[in-house]
């Protein structure tokens, strides 16, 4: 054959390659590919789980946000209610206090009036007594004046006697 082509050697080369290809496929290619496939599946599974978890987390987040929004509204509503209640209660307290104060004032005024009357009565009595006493004193004092006149007369008489 030209170029030293030999059919037997070609077949021997083919046999060699068939043995090699079979061996490499069974010993190396398939096990490695299987491992890569398993790892890919593992990571795919992980990825799916992560995506699932992320979706769940997103859902939970939305729920919480919705709850938070509701809570805010609820708080605002309660705040308003409490404000109204507080206003009402404080008004009640103020009214009660006002009533009590009015009652106290009225009572005080009443008492003051009574005392005033009482004091006036006492004062009138006292003034009467003082007048009587003064009158008596005046009367007493006019009697003494006579005595003073007498003494004065005596003095004059005595002085006249001495000058003589």
């Amino acid at each position, binding site marked *: 054959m030209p170029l030293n082509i030999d059919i037997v050697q070609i*077949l021997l080369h083919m046999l060699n390659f068939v043995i090699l290809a079979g061996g490499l496929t069974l010993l190396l290619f398939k096990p490695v590919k299987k491992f890569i496939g398993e790892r890919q599946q593992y990571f795919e599974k992980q990825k799916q789980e992560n995506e699932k978890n992320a979706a769940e987390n997103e859902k939970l987040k939305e729920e919480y946000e919705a709850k938070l929004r509701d809570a805010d509204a609820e708080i605002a509503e309660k705040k308003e209610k409490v404000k109204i209640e507080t206003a009402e209660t404080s008004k009640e307290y103020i009214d009660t206090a006002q009533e009590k104060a009015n009652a106290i004032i009225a009572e005080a005024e009443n008492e003051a009036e009574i005392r005033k009357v009482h004091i006036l009565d006492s004062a009138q009595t006292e003034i009467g007594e003082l007048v009587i006493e003064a009158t008596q004193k005046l009367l007493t004092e006019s009697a003494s004046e006579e005595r003073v006149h007498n003494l004065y007369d005596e003095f004059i008489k005595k002085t006249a006697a001495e000058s003589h």
Partner: protein
Amino acid sequence: MKKKISKRRAVFIFVWLALIFIILAAIIALWEPPAETESIKVAMKDGVLHDKNKISLFGIIDVNPALISAYVVTAVLLVAALLIRIFAIPKFKMIPGKFQTVIEALVEFFDNMAKGNSPHRTGFIAAYIFSAGVYIFFSTMFELLGIQGVTTAGHSIALPAPIADINAAIAMGFMTYLMILAAGIVSNGVKGGLKVLKDFSLPISMSFRLFGALLSGLLVTELVYYYISLSFVLPVIVGVLFTSLHALIQTYVLATLASVFYGEAVEPKKVKKTE
């Protein structure tokens, strides 16, 4: 004291190396090849045809040295694959180490190539191009080892790359073609087979491309080796560079061609759209 000794030693080593270099240079300058040595023409012809030096295969048949190379490479690759299968693959981790990354990258490279070029059927062609790629790459690199064999005439010969033998290249080309033909018949019946048969030039082009590529490298290295004065430094560059490049390029070319033609052969028939 110590400094004196080390200085003396350095001088001694320098003189010794210089002496060796001078003697070697004198040998190269004065050496003439013996008259009975094969001429460059004979060496080149044997490099191409392998018709002079034969090696006995288990004493049964005299074969080209490349066939012995092919069997040695196959044996080494199978043992390596077995060792990897037993010791390395069971210890593979989810986060790969260096060795695992190399093995996985190798498998994925051919697998992805098969998927890209033949998306309809990938399983078989991926394994095929993986095996062919590994075989072509390592058998071409095998040449660099320069393992010696003994010819039937009793001479020593460096075992060449298997694909540098035209018989190996023809075997690869025809086997690839037959595989594609079989895949065409399995996928699309007789029509698929006929479609592949149209490309009857494929095995010839594939075989001779492999052979020619490997041969060109071999001839250049052979030429360089022939002249002993060129046998310093230059073979390191020429031999290693040519061999490595051929190994890579031919692996890629054969794997790509095989997967592309396989992909065409197994492509499902287009169903005519009814309006």
